[in-house]
């Protein structure tokens, strides 16, 4: 299916060769939404190495599209050519503009912000949350185990990461349901009005919290940001807000989507569930492989200069998107990439991007996934997808199923 007929090709800049224009409807088109990971994995075979995809949705950017592992890593490792300035596709008022920190900041300034939180997200620091994650996972399972069914995304996938997030930030658990509704409103409502209202509500709440943490410091992430003095100077109100709000956007939907994919797969693969249960020592590799095949997001960049890659001449100001899930299916790096193989030789996966902007929450995400798989399989080892379920996926920048009804 081609959508070229509906694209106003006159808006495509002259320097983009016509034969490289392939509107693929990434995150939004019907082919993508029918089976997102298969669609993205196939791009490596069906499309040129680097191509230009005009967006079907006028609110999204037209972009050079990069799918090969080696190329993605190159882009991620060269922020001086491919900047993240303005990369987060979130509307901000021009006269009240703020950067999403640290993602939208280039090196060398980037390190000033990132360094504030790196110690709190190290594998060792994150390991201290393990008991807490385990407790919350079990509390959630308690709410549905005896019903013999659940809607995984709403009953587990959504609240678990939100709980941990609140814990980490130093926010009260009583806010969990409110945060859930804000996250849904902001990211999945498909309505600009609801998204805008959610944004306002979140902003108002965060401003209040920032004030409170200024007066009453604690060990949480928000307080750490508020009281940080990188280079001896405190952050401005705008920087603090941009940092905290970015963590909100970055940390919730991604883990949610990943868990949902994984449990859908587990529901449909009973022998593999048993394999996981039987090889507890291999759990880290299980998590890594599932992250490889179910990575959920993309890295957007803007060219700071004219640049040529594999014969493709890109110009300063052009936008570019790294399709991380596709790169994780690159057969040059991962043999038989569509096979879920828990004994692969380990290589860096791109689920968390890479380079200076690589996901700060990576170790936490891995731990959450590990604990969730362990606890769920321990208590509900046999479950399946509810009969006659048709899986649908959310459009948008984080790929995931809308509902995963399970029965046991």
């Amino acid at each position, binding site marked *: 299916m081609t959508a070229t007929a509906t694209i106003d090709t006159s808006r495509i800049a002259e320097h983009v060769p016509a034969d490289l224009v392939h509107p693929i409807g990434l995150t939004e088109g019907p082919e993508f939404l029918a089976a997102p990971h298969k669609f993205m994995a196939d791009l490596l075979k069906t499309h040129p190495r680097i191509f230009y995809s005009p967006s079907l949705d006028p609110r999204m950017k037209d972009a050079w599209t990069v799918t090969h592992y080696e190329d993605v890593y190159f882009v991620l*490792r060269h922020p001086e050519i491919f900047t993240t300035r303005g990369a987060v596709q979130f509307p901000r008022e021009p006269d009240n503009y703020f950067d999403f920190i640290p993602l939208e900041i280039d090196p060398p300034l980037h390190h000033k912000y990132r360094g504030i939180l*790196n110690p709190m997200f*190290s*594998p060792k620091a994150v390991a201290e949350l393990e008991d807490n994650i385990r407790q919350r996972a079990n509390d959630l399972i308690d709410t549905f185990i005896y019903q013999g069914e659940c809607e995984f995304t709403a009953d587990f996938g959504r609240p678990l990461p939100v709980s941990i997030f609140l814990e980490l930030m130093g926010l009260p658990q009583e806010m969990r349901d409110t945060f859930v509704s804000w996250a849904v409103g902001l990211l999945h409502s498909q309505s600009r009005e609801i998204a805008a209202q959610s944004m306002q509500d979140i902003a108002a709440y965060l401003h209040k919290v920032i004030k409170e943490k200024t007066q009453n410091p604690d060990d949480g992430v928000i307080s750490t940001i508020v009281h940080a003095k990188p280079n001896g100077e405190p952050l401005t109100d705008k920087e603090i807000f941009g940092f905290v709000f970015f963590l909100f956007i970055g940390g919730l939907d991604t883990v949610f989507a990943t868990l949902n994919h994984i449990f859908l797969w587990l529901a449909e693969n009973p022998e593999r569930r048993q394999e996981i249960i039987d090889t507890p020592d291999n759990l880290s590799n299980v998590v890594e492989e599932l992250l490889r095949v179910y990575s959920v997001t993309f890295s957007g960049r803007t060219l700071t200069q004219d640049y040529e890659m594999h014969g493709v001449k890109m110009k300063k100001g052009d936008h570019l998107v790294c399709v991380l899930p596709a790169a994780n299916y690159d057969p040059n790096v991962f043999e038989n990439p569509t096979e879920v193989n828990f004994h692969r030789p380990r*290589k860096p996966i791109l689920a968390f991007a890479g380079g*200076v902007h*690589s996901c*700060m929450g990576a170790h936490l995400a891995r731990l959450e996934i590990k604990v969730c798989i362990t606890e769920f399989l321990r208590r509900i080892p046999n479950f399946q997808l509810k009969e006659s379920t048709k899986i649908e996926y959310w459009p948008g920048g984080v790929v995931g199923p809308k509902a995963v009804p399970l029965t046991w």
Partner: protein
Amino acid sequence: MAFVTYVEHDGTEHKVEVPAGDTVMQGAFNNMIEGIVAECGGGGACATCHCYVADEWIDKVGPPSEPEQQMLEFASDETRSGSRLSCQITVSDELNGLVVLLPESQF
């Protein structure tokens, strides 16, 4: 400016110039030397830029910091005295002639 020699696991040597102020990791990257991955881009958050400082340079380069030591525990290949995260070693004129050995794998 300093000359740094990177010795790959198979013995292949690369002697390159690294500007003072750059890290040993950046020196590897800028010269396309295989064997250092640096998944996190040099933030001390991943342990895939692991290198072994050659014995005669260990004192001059100095030991890893406490947070670095914690990250090194996650390095895939064995760590020994001389193990450092190459993103945490800043090159200076004093380190001219530095030799680092690269592990067999970073993963």
